[in-house]
């Protein structure tokens, strides 16, 4: 089974870049088996559709616009965050993860197992580092994800 860890975000806007920071953290701290791919998607939007479609299971790491304490992680299954329509766009940059999944669904190629691990940001001001809150949470979130991979996919994953 091909598993994709898809980190989305803009690295120049502090916590907005959480998904990318998380990919880098996982790269540095764990030895992942070959069928688990870490993908730094930046803010690629639609242009990353193939990465999703070529996987059997996908974990999206991103920030979410939800109410709550910064650093809170929310876990969603596919049905929880699929849009039911494509909103009006003025720019292709506005096509985010959710639009990508929708078009993939229409193409009939969207994997069934997609999970979103969304973290509530503390700040999205310009900056290339995470806020102290998310910086502190990052190792715990990474460990949670790795534990899930160990448990659900029966993978043996060692720390570096």
């Amino acid at each position, binding site marked *: 089974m091909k598993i994709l860890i898809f980190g989305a975000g803009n690295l120049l806007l502090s916590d907005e870049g959480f998904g990318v920071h998380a990919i880098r953290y996982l790269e540095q701290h764990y030895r992942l088996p070959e069928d688990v791919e870490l993908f730094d998607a930046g803010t690629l939007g*639609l242009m990353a559709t*193939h990465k999703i479609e070529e996987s059997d299971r996908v974990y999206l790491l991103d920030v979410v616009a939800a109410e709550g304490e910064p650093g809170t992680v929310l876990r969603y299954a596919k049905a929880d*965050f699929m849009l*039911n329509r*494509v*909103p009006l766009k003025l720019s*292709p*940059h*506005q096509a985010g993860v959710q639009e990508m999944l929708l078009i993939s669904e229409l193409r009939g190629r969207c994997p069934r197992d997609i999970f979103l691990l*969304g973290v509530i940001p503390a700040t999205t001001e310009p900056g290339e580092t995470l806020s102290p809150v998310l910086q502190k949470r990052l190792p715990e979130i990474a460990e949670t994800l790795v534990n899930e991979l160990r448990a659900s996919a029966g993978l043996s994953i060692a720390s570096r």
Partner: protein
Amino acid sequence: MATRTITLDPVTRIEGHLRIDAEVSNGQVSKAWSSAQMWRGLEIILRGKEPQDAWILAQRICGVCTTVHAIASIRSVEHALKVKLPLNAQFIRNIIMAQHSVQDHIVHFYHLSAMDWIDVLSALKADPKKTAALAQSLSDWPGNSETEFKAVQDKLTRFAASGKLGIFASGYWGHSAMKLPPEVNLMAVAHYLSALDYQRKAAQIVAVLGGKNPHIQNLVVGGVATAINVDNLATLNMERLSLIRTLMEETRDFVKKVYYPDVLAIAEAYKEWFKYGAGVTSYLAVPELPIDEDSKGFTLPGGIITKGDLANFRPVRTQADEYLINNIQESVAHAWFDGTAPLQPWKGETAPNYTDFKPDGKYSWCKAPRLAGQPVQVGPLAQILVGYAAGNGWVKPLVNEANAKLSIGIADYHSTMGRILTRGMRACIMADLSLEQLDKLISNIASGDQTYANPTEIPNGEFQGVGFHEAARGSLSHWMVFKNKKITNYQAVVPSTWNASPRDEQGAMGPYEASLVGTPVADPEKPLELLRTVHSFDPCIACAVHAVDPAGKEITTVKVL
């Protein structure tokens, strides 16, 4: 009819970056404002960083045009230090640039622009057999079969039956301005769904050459870090190069047999759109795809066209053109920044000061770049017009062929449809040039040239440089000043800054704004016509913020200062 104002403000929808306000009276736009709703902090983040590393952060400005910012940034250092590039490095960079453009144009056309002209609901009524006959009359693309079109239509019908076609509800289907026959709509929807497969191939080429996609890893000041050894399995070898060739041929076929014929079909059906959307008819394109180590010769020419006068265009022969460098200034008269007089980007300031949307005052995060005091339009239209004026061998035949086919003249290009048509032409040219550059690379390696970089140390002292790149959306420039190996000032003048620019000191509108004036609007509740014109520019208000909203409602969490 009374005057009313339409606001297209995706800030209230998702990940808003661009807001368009238009005043409509007597069924057409009388005034327009373009407002960037996001502030990009790159300039401030880069201060104090090392010049040779700026490109790595610069390509994070935006998720779609990653490589173009990397190229412009590294070129700014090379310009400052007068560094030459080995031929292999030029060719590898050229291929990356060209394939990035192919990918970008495919996605822009099908996933942003085409839906303004295609009515998906009408595709449900099409006859797949007639659709196949029509598509086969346009090209011999193997995907244009009755079976394929039937399969797509069945899929759409299933989505519609389960209520899921509502996913496209924001498209203005059934709008009186939609007029393609059902068969053309079905053909285009089928191509829309396969387009993603071809943009992926282009991405793969960039990944093989650049180390990774979307964020390339292989630039160094003075060249590339791509190791090529035709016999060594650990490096880029013959097998990888032949994979690249196959992928390039596949994307070229898609562009020439699917994308461009679809553009021509839409242009033919909506010919009146060659009359609307001209706006600013002064243009700028910089020369691109250098062919020698000194970057003196270029495959595609640069130039400045003033007020639509092609006969008297001013050539821009190199990317170090002094007239160009000395005549670019940015105004903040209507932008949310402190500052008084327009400044040349090396002296540019980034002092944000948000003061709410004031149509007669400050109303955008976008500065107003001006060339010798005048607004100019950038993008594929500018590049094609300049190429045509210069008699370029890649450009001229395509223009002549399209003019004959559509019974139009070069004056019709100053329009909404002109921008869509020329982007299609540019995709064809870039697809062909990718292969041409690959041939040049392979023959240069075969001749024994094994140099990929002229390694360059950053010296002490103060330097300033500008890196130009004629990118998918038009002329891009990164302006860097560094002192004792640290960046002291950095300004990026991106294509969408030129095009989405607000008014300047003189009150002169930017290209988006000017292009909307005079556009007819049939139904102010559904201003499809405005979207057509704005989308034709391929807007890219950099700095994509894209928080996921679990509730699926239309949101943005972007906090503006």
